[in-house]
């Protein structure tokens, strides 16, 4: 088995606060929110009437899809995923394969929770209206879970492994781990990792009904998502996609590619819904074990970690997450790394969260900054009793950082954690 070093050579983003890498970089540095009031959620009687979704116009979308595809396209997740993926491929300086032969050395792991939920609703209504014939040929490819990776595969001509992973809110981080393993083992030269999540009432409704979303900020959307705040009252639903090109270091050097960062390793596990773990709550022992194993697999010291990009959704569980980090790293209140959560700006992008937040993390490493936490000016005292408040930057910090750890936790009591390192030409 090979043991390739794996680096990141391309980034693509379709986030609620930026749909190009330059715009997104600027937005996260400034703490710009992508959360807005949603009239459709209000009209449908949602408790939480604010949400975050990427802002795209028809001209932009038309650059990525053929006129025929656009005629019946009603899958926001596929639109976000394809935009992020194709932009990442281009950013990596890669071309689509020629018309006759696929690119056998390149594949994708592109995750999602659901696909084309609006298309599914339309199809279900047609069937119930006894008009099944009117479904045409576009329903299956937009509603199959692997629709997003199938569209990406066809547009780029990928000939290596092409799959869609699904791990609830850990999907995006898991996609990076799966892609990493395939490149590390030498089974692929490069893998496009990423994840996407649909927008709209039919994807967000279930969370609203569970009362895990905030209903206290319908009149002040930008203040609604409050990770680590005393007044955190539930997450704000989001959507979008993030994409990263993972490539063997040898391949990247051979084609003189821009290298953003190195993937050192990671881990994914489950709490088995035992102990304190349930379908919807994480088992703290499993979270800590996942973080510790990721550090061990990456062969770094816990004290070398500069920044934690947390899951931190803005619920009452944020303090427990910080406690888990502290225990797993074995750190004191004062030598705890910097910690931040992108969710204050973009809400919880569900299956896209891990990939969007990883793109943000890579931008921090590559450009040397730590984006500010927004909406936690009233820091939760449970958290400030665990770690020094200076570890939770509320203003942009511009300084070189070397090692960043990212984790995501999902329903089903599952965890994924990955460690990135700034790449230096050495």
């Amino acid at each position, binding site marked *: 088995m090979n043991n390739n070093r794996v680096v990141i050579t391309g980034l693509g983003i379709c986030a609620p606060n930026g749909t190009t890498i330059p715009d997104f970089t600027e937005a996260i540095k400034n703490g710009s929110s992508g959360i807005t009031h949603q009239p459709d959620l209000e009209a449908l009687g949602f408790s939480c009437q604010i949400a975050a979704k990427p802002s795209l116009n028809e001209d932009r979308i038309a650059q990525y899809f053929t006129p*025929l595809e656009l005629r019946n396209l009603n899958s926001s997740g596929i639109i976000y995923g394809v935009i992020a993926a194709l932009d990442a491929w281009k950013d990596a300086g890669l071309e689509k394969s020629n018309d006759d032969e696929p690119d056998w050395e390149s594949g994708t792991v592109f995750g999602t929770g659901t696909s084309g939920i609006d298309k599914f609703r339309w199809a279900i209504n047609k069937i119930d209206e006894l008009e099944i014939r009117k479904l045409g040929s*576009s329903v299956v490819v937009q509603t199959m879970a692997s629709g997003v990776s199938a569209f990406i595969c066809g547009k780029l001509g990928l000939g290596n492994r092409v799959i869609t992973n699904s791990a609830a809110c850990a999907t995006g981080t898991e996609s990076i781990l799966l892609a990493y393993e395939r490149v590390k083992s030498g089974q692929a030269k490069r893998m496009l990792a990423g994840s996407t999540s649909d927008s709209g009432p039919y994807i967000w409704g279930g969370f609203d009904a569970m009362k895990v979303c905030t209903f206290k900020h319908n009149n002040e959307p930008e203040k609604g998502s409050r990770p680590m705040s005393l007044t955190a009252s539930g997450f704000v639903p989001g959507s979008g996609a993030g994409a990263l090109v993972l490539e063997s270091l040898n391949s990247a050097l051979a084609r003189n590619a821009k290298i953003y960062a190195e993937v050192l390793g990671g881990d994914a596990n489950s709490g088995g819904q035992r102990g304190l773990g349930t379908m919807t709550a994480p088992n703290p022992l499993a979270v800590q074990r996942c973080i510790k194993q990721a550090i061990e697999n990456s062969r770094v010291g816990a004290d070398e970690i500069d920044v934690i990009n947390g899951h931190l959704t803005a619920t009452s569980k944020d303090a427990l997450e910080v406690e888990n980090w502290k225990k797993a790293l074995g750190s004191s209140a004062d030598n705890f790394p910097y910690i931040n959560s992108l969710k204050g700006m973009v809400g919880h992008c569900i299956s896209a969260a891990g990939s969007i937040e990883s793109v943000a993390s890579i931008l921090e490493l590559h450009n040397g900054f730590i984006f500010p936490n927004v909406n936690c000016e009233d820091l939760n005292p449970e958290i400030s009793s665990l770690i020094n408040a200076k570890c939770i930057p509320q203003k942009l910090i511009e300084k070189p950082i070397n090692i960043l750890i990212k984790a995501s936790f999902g329903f089903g009591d599952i965890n994924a954690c990955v460690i990135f390192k700034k790449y230096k030409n050495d």
Partner: protein
Amino acid sequence: MTEQHIIDELKTIIIPYTEEKSALENIGAHTDFIKDLKINSANLVDIVLDIEEKFNITIDNDSMAKMLTVKATIDVIENKLQANAG
């Protein structure tokens, strides 16, 4: 409706489904949707739906299965139009 009129309507319907622009330009009764126009076979059902809408007819499964060439398609459309008129 003349045969040429039906062919003209078909040509407009087919534009988004084919990249064989010259074959589409020279479309005639003999044209085969898959061999000549390289239309993805999955899209044939979409073309049938577009034809139904354009000509305000309903095409049954047996007729649909025959619609692989322009000639066969014209026959189906003419039959359905006559049935409607009758």
